[in-house]
C-alpha cells in the first residue's frame, strides 16, 4: 500500500516536468517569431544616429581631413562657414547643385560609422544624395526590406549670411536598413 502512494508522487513530478517541457517548447516556438523585431529597431536607431550626427555636429567640430575645418573641401573653397552643421553644409551643396561633392562629403563622414551589414541613403528635398547612383544590388536590397523607419529633419540656413541669402527649408531624410 505504502509503495503505491510513493509511485503516485513520482507520477506527479514526472507529469509536471512533462508539462513544463511542453509549455517551455511552446513558449520558445511562440516567441521565436519576434526574432526580427530588434533588427528593425536597430536600423531605426542607426538612422536616428546618422541624422543626429549630421544635424548636431558643426564643421569645426568634426575631425575629418576631407570634410572638416581646413580640410580638403575647405581649402578648395567649397566650404566657407565652419559654424554650419554637417546637415546644413550638405543642403548647401544640394542648393548649389554640387551633388557629387555632397555625395563624397556624406561618404567621408559616414565611413565606418554604419556596420557593413547595413545600407543607408540620405535624401535632401526628395533628391537622393547618397549614394548618388545606387547599384542594382542596393536597390534590390531596399526593395526586399519589409519595414524601413526613416529619420526626418527640417534643414534650413544661410548660403550668404552677410546678404541674408538662405536655402530651403528642405526635408532631410536618412534611411538605414539591414542588407539582405
Amino acid at each position, binding site marked *: 500500500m505504502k509503495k503505491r*502512494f*510513493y509511485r*503516485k*508522487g513520482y507520477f*506527479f*513530478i514526472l*507529469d*509536471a*516536468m512533462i*508539462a*513544463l517541457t511542453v*509549455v*517551455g517548447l511552446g*513558449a520558445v516556438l511562440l*516567441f521565436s517569431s*519576434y526574432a526580427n*523585431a*530588434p533588427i*528593425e*529597431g536597430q536600423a*531605426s536607431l542607426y538612422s536616428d544616429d546618422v541624422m543626429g550626427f549630421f544635424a548636431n555636429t558643426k564643421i569645426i567640430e568634426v575631425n575629418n581631413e576631407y570634410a572638416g575645418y581646413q580640410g580638403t573641401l575647405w581649402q578648395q573653397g567649397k566650404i566657407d562657414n565652419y559654424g554650419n552643421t554637417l546637415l546644413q553644409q550638405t543642403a548647401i551643396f544640394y542648393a548649389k547643385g554640387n551633388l557629387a561633392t555632397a555625395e563624397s562629403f556624406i561618404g567621408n563622414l559616414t565611413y565606418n560609422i554604419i556596420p557593413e551589414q547595413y545600407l543607408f541613403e540620405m535624401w535632401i*528635398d*526628395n533628391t537622393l544624395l547618397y549614394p548618388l547612383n545606387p547599384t542594382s544590388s542596393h536597390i534590390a536590397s531596399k526593395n526586399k526590406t519589409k*519595414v524601413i*523607419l*526613416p*529619420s*526626418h*529633419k*527640417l534643414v*534650413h*540656413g*544661410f548660403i550668404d*549670411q*552677410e*546678404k*541674408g*541669402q*538662405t536655402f530651403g*527649408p*528642405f*526635408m532631410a531624410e536618412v534611411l538605414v536598413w539591414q542588407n539582405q
Partner: protein
Amino acid sequence: MTLAKKGVFLTFIALSLVAAMLVLIKPNNSVQDNNFPVVQNRIMQANSFVTDVENVYLKNALESSGTKAVFALIEYMNDTDSFLTNFDRQFVDVMRNGTINGSYIDTLTNAEIMKDNTLEHALSVLQNVSQDDFTTNSLLNITGLSAYQQDPWNLKVRANATLFVQTESASWQRNMTVIALIPIQRFADPYPFVNSNAQIFNIINKSMVKSASWNVTSFEEHMALGTYIQNPAAPNFIMRFMNQSSSSQCCGIESIINPPLLSDNDETESYADYLFYSRAYENNCAQLYNMTEFYPDYSKLKLDYGHILLYNLTGASFEDAC
C-alpha cells in the same frame, strides 16, 4: 489521506514553476505590438519638426527677412533721398510683406530685394514643406514683431508666434518668442548718406582702435576709412534711419565726417557726424577747434572739446576755429 495531499502539493509546485516561467519570458510589449514603433517614429519625427521650426527655421527666417528689409529700406532712402518716419512700423511692414506705406518697396526702388524674402513668404514655404514632405498640417502665426537694439552693433528682431502642427497621431500648439540677431556691420549708414546728398557713403565697420590708444594717426585713419565707434552721446543705428541725433545710452555710434568728401568742407561744425548734421555748434564757433597737426586735406576739420578728449587728441596742437 496524507499521501494524497502530497500529490496536490507537488501539482501546485509544478503550476507555480510554469507560471513563473511564463512571466519571465513574456515578450516586451513594445515589440509585440507591430504598429507601435511606426506610430512612435511618426510622433518623434513630428516633434523634431516642431523643435526645428522653433529653434532653427523661425530664427533664420527672421534674420534673413530682417537683413533683406534693412537693405531694402536703405535702398529706398537712397532712391527717395528721405528719412523714415517710424522705423519700427516701416521695418516690420517691409520685413513681413515687402510693403512700405502700402506700396511694394521693390517696385518703388526697382530692385528685387524683398521678392521671395519676406517673412510671409517664409511662412508659406514652411507650410508647403510641412504638408508635402512631412505629411503634417502646420500653421505658424506671427502675433507680434518688433525691432530694437540692446548693444551698438546688433539689431534685434523679436517675434511672438504660435505654431500649430497636426499629424495623424498627435497635435501640437506651441507659443514661442524667438529673437534673431542681425549684425549691423555690413549695412550702409543712411544718416550721413541722406544728409550729404549721397556725398558720404559709409558701410558700418567698427574701429579696431581701443579707447586708450587713440592718437593723431589713428584718428586720421578712422576718419579716412569712415569707421565707427561706440558713443553713448550719439544716436544708434535705428535712430539714424529717422534722422534723429539725440543720444542712445546703450547703443549710440558715431563716425567722423571726412572733409575732402564734402563739396563745402569748411563748415562751422564739430565733424562728429551727429553733431555735424544736427548743426549743434552752428552758433557756437567759440567751442570749436581746428587741429593744426592734421594732414593738410583735413585742415578744415573742426572738433568740439568733448571729441578732442574722446579721441585722446589733447596732446596735439590745435587752435580756436574762430
